């Protein structure tokens, strides 16, 4: 038996190892996704705090609503409360596991819903260090994976997985994701830009559990290593299964949303 294993190992070529790593990485992503399945819908408030290289800060306030979809990416609604001149502006996205997301924005000053037709989702969201693609649901199908091993992040045992975006319009060549081994929550993501240099790091802090199952971090901190700028997201007033439905996530709902 020992000799057989030895022979197997001897003949194992790098492609097999790659395939094994890909399989293991995918399994971890799937497990994390499985553990977050069934939340139905949730709402939360979000403060976005931008800091530039000089240390100057600027804050935006918004409210998020998310609706889980059985066979596709989540639906997402963001209501802008502050700054005042964009108050009432509402952003709606249908994220898709494959292909481009659908996006609309309601402009109260124009009283019109505008569809955003752009393959771009890697630009800064509201001038922050977050790109749209960093904020939307992390669908398993959007990446290829490679398991890298186990590491400790802030004293927590973690799985380290590299994921490669399938979307050619992504701003990244790869991301390294650390999941904690106990709950499969993402602790940290390192983003690598088109020339494969470390661009920014996102860390999640103060995880809270809702409905005894779903974990959400209260604080997300994104640091851009190339420009020295930072953005912090602070979430509060999380509520799950509030009874939202598809009708609350269509173009008409954008105008009504308050």
């Amino acid at each position, binding site marked *: 038996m020992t000799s057989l294993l030895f022979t197997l190992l001897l003949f194992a070529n790098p492609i097999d190892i790659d395939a094994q790593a890909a399989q293991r990485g995918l399994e971890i992503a799937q497990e994390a996704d499985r553990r977050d399945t069934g939340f139905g819908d949730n709402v939360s408030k979000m403060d976005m705090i931008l800091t530039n290289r000089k240390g100057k800060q600027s804050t935006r306030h918004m409210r998020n609503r998310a609706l889980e979809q059985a066979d596709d990416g989540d639906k997402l609604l963001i209501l802008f409360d502050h700054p005042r001149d*964009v108050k009432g502006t509402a952003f709606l996205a249908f994220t898709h596991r494959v292909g481009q997301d659908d996006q609309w924005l309601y402009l109260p*000053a124009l009283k*019109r819903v*505008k569809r*955003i037709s*752009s393959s*771009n989702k890697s*630009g800064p969201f509201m001038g922050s260090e977050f790109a749209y693609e960093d904020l939307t649901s992390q669908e398993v199908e959007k990446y290829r994976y490679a398991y890298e091993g186990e590491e400790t992040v802030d004293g927590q045992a973690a799985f380290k997985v590299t994921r490669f975006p399938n979307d050619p319009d992504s701003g990244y060549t790869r991301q390294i994701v650390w999941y904690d081994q106990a709950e499969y929550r993402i602790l940290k993501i390192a983003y690598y830009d088109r020339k494969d240099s470390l661009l920014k790091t996102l860390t999640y802090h103060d995880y809270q559990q809702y409905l005894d199952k779903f974990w959400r971090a209260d604080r997300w901190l994104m640091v851009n290593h190339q420009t020295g700028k930072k953005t912090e997201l602070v979430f509060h007033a999380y509520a799950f299964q509030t009874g939202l439905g598809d009708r609350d996530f269509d173009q008409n709902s954008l105008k009504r949303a308050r």
Partner: protein
Amino acid sequence: MTEPAAPGWITRYATAVIRFRFPILVFGVIGVVLLATNATALVINDDYRYFFNDDDPQLLAYNDLQDTYNKNDTILFVVAPKQGGVFEPDTLAAIEALTEAAWQIPFATRVDSMTNYQHTEAEGDELIVADLVEDAASLSSEQRAYAAGIATTEPLLRHRLINPAATATGINVTLELPGVKQGEQRPAVARAREIAATMGDQFPGVDIHLTGILMLNNAFDEAAMHDMATLMPLMFAVIALVMALLLRSVSGTVATLTVVGLSVMAAMGFTAWLGIPMSPPSSIAPTLIMTLAVADSIHIIVSILQQMRAGSDKQTAIIESLRLNMQPVFLTSLTTLVGFLSLNASAVVPLNDLGNITSFGVAAAFLMSVTVLPALVAILPLRVTARGEESPLMDKLADFIIARRGPVLAVSVLVVFGFAAMIPNNELNDEFVNYFDTDIPFRAATDFTTEHLTGIYQIEFSLPAAETGGISEPDYLQTIEHFAGWYRAQAKVVHVDVLSDTMKRLNKNMHGGDAAAYTLPASRELSAQYLLLYEMSLPYGLDLNNRIDIDKAATRFVVTVENASSQEMRDLVESGAAWLRANAPTHMQVTGSGIPVIFSYLTLANSIATFQGTLLAFLLITLTLIISLRSFKYGLISLIPNLVPSMVAFGIWGLVDGQVNFGLTVVSALSIGIVVDDTVHFLSKYLRAKREKGLDTEGAIRYAFGTVGRAITVTTLVLILGFMIMMLSDFAMNEGMGKLTAITLALALITDFFMLPALLLVLQPKNEKASAPARPVPAA
């Protein structure tokens, strides 16, 4: 000889040097080599920012602006098809490929080109945001013509990334260098060059040029390295040749080269030990040190050879040479030191370095000349060939001036005033692009860019709004639009980047593409919401964070200017600030900044500081002369031959060139210390003849010509040669400095040989004239 018979301290010193020649040589060489091991730690500071003091207010303002938006370290690829326009399929494909490849340049955070320009279009209630050119090879001629129409009319692109004729286009790469060590840009520049070369091979129909701020820094880096690598060995070879011809002695030449080499090594070691970085202006210090060091050696060795020809043995000759030369060599080294140290008055840090490094070298050269040099000569075999001591040329010159003192002085005065009148033709100007020779690729690329595409000088403003989010206020947008309109109407302005152009385009898009809606949005809310919509549609690296601050309380406003002199630059900045004072609310009344702006103000600050430094150097040197010549009168007379060369040189410069950069402003200060040497030698011999030999003025002038005329000529020629080698530098600042100093030194020689003796003759005491002709005049 009127010297006392009892051995003075110099004689005792010289005897000791000969006795301990081996230890002196060994310890001297070991000491210098140990010091020189530091030189491996020498760094080159290639950052243009190194030209400014850290507390330069303009630089602080500019750093603040870069911290608010982003840094402006850029590489600009300029693509020009050999024939046809940039919208031909091949060229378009080249631009698209180059844009894509540019993302791979280390530290690149942004790539802007006309192909990835985020074109916005309205279709019903849909806002379409996409690259202007995608998959260029597959586009139809109609699609290409459509893209051409947009690119050549869009205010963001026209005159910035594309010329109206569409024959040249730019790909602008913004980089964020970590800023922790020197030479960080090298891998980025290497990669950019590699991309340009690869693309050039792949698309032979296009020419690709590289310019931008990072290429400027890199050109500084390469110019400094080039100067150190080529000028130094050349100078060494020239010194070897001149010494061999002059001394006709292998040992003398070897001894001189040793002193020169050790002086440079000691100075560079000391420089590295102090942590002073090399930069293009200071990279010529080693060449300068060699030139100055060789003069000390010439005086001492020529004297030794003279003594030996006169029949002395070598030891006696060395002792006598030191006795004769210790004081003048010390004095000339001291004045040279004072001249170079006065460069510390300059507001330009690399020029302070140049003064200090050269000062170390001059001090080291003096030390070496009175220790290692005599020790080495004492060790090496030295033979002399009998040779005529007479200088018939010098005698003839003396006769000529004595005979025609009046006309010589009159012509001299006329010439001096004539050229001095040309000094105002000079204009202070620091266009940093012109620091580089036209055969440097950076200069060629930049000249091409300026001629065909856009300017590379920029004035940047961060225009504050009244409050957070205030950039969306119609009043604010209107003001910046008018401001842009005003700048666009000014001469030399080729492009203005202003947010109001983007707002007008978005307003048009939001009104179904209606051309009549190409106006500023009517309300603050509209503008803010359009911006939000637009920002959500932009890809990585093409966002608005480089134009709008995080609070939306200020926008960046960039004026691109072509070929403006420092004066024109300052005028544009100041008239812009004046426009804001007259037409904008108080909170918007700011002043523009940017690298060329900082340079243009530094030119002014530097010229004042340098003038004060030069004045101080003149005063100190005149004081030194008064003390060492022990005569107030002759100290004052020395001012004339010391001042005249600089005045005439700048007059000549005003006639033939007229552009004075940082490097040239310090030429008077650095040349005074050298010019004065000739005066010192001439006047000290003249006074010795009068005081010790009791000669009259004419006799003393003949004596001075006879004894030092040849030595002065030779050392001055060597110095001129040294500064002419600096003219081979690719860095125009060094080239101009070499040229102007060489002219100054040549004029100094002429002044000392014509104007000074004529002046001394005209000023001779009346009573002497009557008694003078009776006395016979010895030749030497």
